């Protein structure tokens, strides 16, 4: 049996390999060094690469992330970790007004090759200020690239691609996926950002899913298959750049699309992708493009309320049935 790795270790392997290959790659964040990361997601890097490349920052997200941008402009390739996605708000000025705009402002003469990696995801009782995913916010900002990996093998190759990319890349890791295993892929394999994949072929409906929603879509597709409905699952992997060609090609075959995300529905990424499909594949559609997202509320901690927040396989299957 081939080797499998967890999502967490997929990202960690990518960091080891890229830091070994390129001395300009550095890691910054709270407790990423000697402690090995609060989720053990940076374990061993400090011992391997030392304090000048694996840098424990104070709890100063704005200043420390701004310094990562300055370091990137000065020739480094920082990977900056924000422990919980919610804390990204503290970096927003640096992200939006500095990192995202430097290439444009300099007319292409300066670049900010950095990765902001952060965790997200409702579901561990972490509540309103430790659960949110800001990928939709970030995707609205010109100049940023957005990656939302769905499994361990992808997490590894996409992190390697993100580190090698010359633009600021936001890498959103769903903590619910951290322990999930997937088949390891070749160590040297990389993938250009912006290439999606078809995970399950199907003739009747296209399910567009990122991150944890890929697993939800798979469970729904299995249930639907028992009813004779064959769903195709497309994982765009990156929200910016978005693999529009792959999505449109799928929808033109299936004639139906359901777009889903685990972040709040309103003004979210599902709206953008659904609008794009509506604009570019309208004549192929047999039903309005449908969307599913989290409820538009902060995440509650209660064990009765929290499971109601994000789309479930049952909700996905019900939404598909309503389209047929």
């Amino acid at each position, binding site marked *: 049996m081939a080797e499998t790795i967890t999502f967490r270790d997929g990202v960690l392997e990518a960091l080891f390999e890229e830091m070994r290959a390129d001395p*300009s790659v*550095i890691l910054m964040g709270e407790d990423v060094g000697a402690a090995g990361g609060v989720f053990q997601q940076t374990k061993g890097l400090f011992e391997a690469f030392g304090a*000048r*490349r694996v*840098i424990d*920052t*104070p709890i*100063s997200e*704005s*200043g*420390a*992330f*701004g*310094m*990562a*941008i*300055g*370091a*990137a*402009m*000065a*020739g*480094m390739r920082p990977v900056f970790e924000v422990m919980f996605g919610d804390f990204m708000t503290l970096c927003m*000025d*640096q992200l939006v*007004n*500095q990192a995202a*705009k*430097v*290439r*444009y*402002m*300099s*007319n*292409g*003469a*300066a*670049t900010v090759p950095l990765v902001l990696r952060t965790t997200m995801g409702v579901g561990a009782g972490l509540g309103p200020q430790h659960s949110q995913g800001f990928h939709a916010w970030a995707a609205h900002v*010109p*100049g940023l*690239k957005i990656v939302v990996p769905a499994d361990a093998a992808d997490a590894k190759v996409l992190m390697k691609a993100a580190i090698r*990319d*010359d*633009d600021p890349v936001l890498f959103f890791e769903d903590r619910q996926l951290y322990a999930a295993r997937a088949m390891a892929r070749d160590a040297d394999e990389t993938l250009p950002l912006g290439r999606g994949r078809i995970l399950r072929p199907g003739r009747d409906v296209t399910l567009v899913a990122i991150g944890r929603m890929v697993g939800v879509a798979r469970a729904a597709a299995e249930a639907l298959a028992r009813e004779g409905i064959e769903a195709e699952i497309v994982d765009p992997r990156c929200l910016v*750049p978005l693999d529009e060609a792959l999505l449109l090609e799928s929808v033109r075959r299936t004639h139906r699309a359901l777009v889903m995300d685990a972040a709040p529905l309103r003004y979210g990424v599902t709206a953008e992708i659904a609008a794009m499909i509506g604009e570019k594949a309208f004549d192929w559609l047999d039903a309005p493009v449908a969307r599913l997202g989290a409820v538009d509320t902060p995440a509650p901690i209660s064990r009765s309320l929290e499971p109601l927040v994000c789309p479930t396989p049952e909700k996905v299957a019900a939404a598909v049935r309503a389209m047929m």
Partner: protein
Amino acid sequence: MGASPKRAAGGAGSKKAPPAAQDAAEDCLGLYRTMVLIRHFEESMRRLAAAGETPGLVHLCSGQEATNVGVILALREGDYIASHHRGHGHCIAKGAPIDLLAAEILGKAPGICGGRSGSMHVVDLPRGNLGTNGIVGGGIPLAAGAALAARARGTGEIAVCFFGDGALNQGLLHECMNMAAIWSLPVVFVCENNGYGEFTAMEDVTAGESVQARGEVFGIPSVTVDGMNVRAVRAATLAAAQRARIGEGPSFIVCNTWRYGGHHAGDKQDYKDDEETKRWEAADPLITFAKTLVDEKRASRDELAAIEAEVVARVKAAVAFARAAPQPAIETLEAHVHG
């Protein structure tokens, strides 16, 4: 009411700095020429702004030439600076060609950034300039980060971040001073304290008895200098740069200075006191340094006048170039968002 920091016109403030002497490496005429160049460039930009030729907002640094030049001409090629919204002087002192800078401010194609960024967003990385910046305090972490990169590489560059008194109350400054101190980063924090954040007097919004104490609290060697005296600024910068280069970490220099033109070109400056303005104008960095050079017999009045005439001609040519330059081609609108 609590105590607030005080500034003395043409002086260092409450803590008297030693009088600055010429150092062996000083190119006194180079300092003078660069200050005069910045002044004439800025006054040309003021006229262009009044004529409606500069898109958006333009913030001029006339009056602050000694802080621009005293700091930057004490650096080495390869060192980094990060500037702020009042940053034309920094760009010029760091070597930006004035014709291309003028074209950028006018939004023209040959500008340093292709005419798309203008006065507040000039990024000139090939000359080590991390950029002027539209966010107050925005350049501070960029310079500290460039210093972090230099330290990680071991390549020996240092970085300077310029900010105004307005940034003293940004949390970002304190975060970055703390990190620069704990990591002994080769960075020099330079506060160009011109007494006003936009239209609000610094004293009205800034607590504590001294500005330099904001560096001292992090254990950062901090000094207040006469920001109208280019030699005083240069001497403080050389000392700070030396500390940075030998691994002794950051320094903080407070330069008390004055902006002649108010917050932005066209600011009527009703909030300023006439007597205060007169006191600062008497300490004009160009006039006082010219007098010093003549008194020390380093140049005659005629030689200084010749330098000024040459500068005026250069600025005139740069402005003519920029005005005649084409607008950016419309197909460049979406270029360089991503690689």
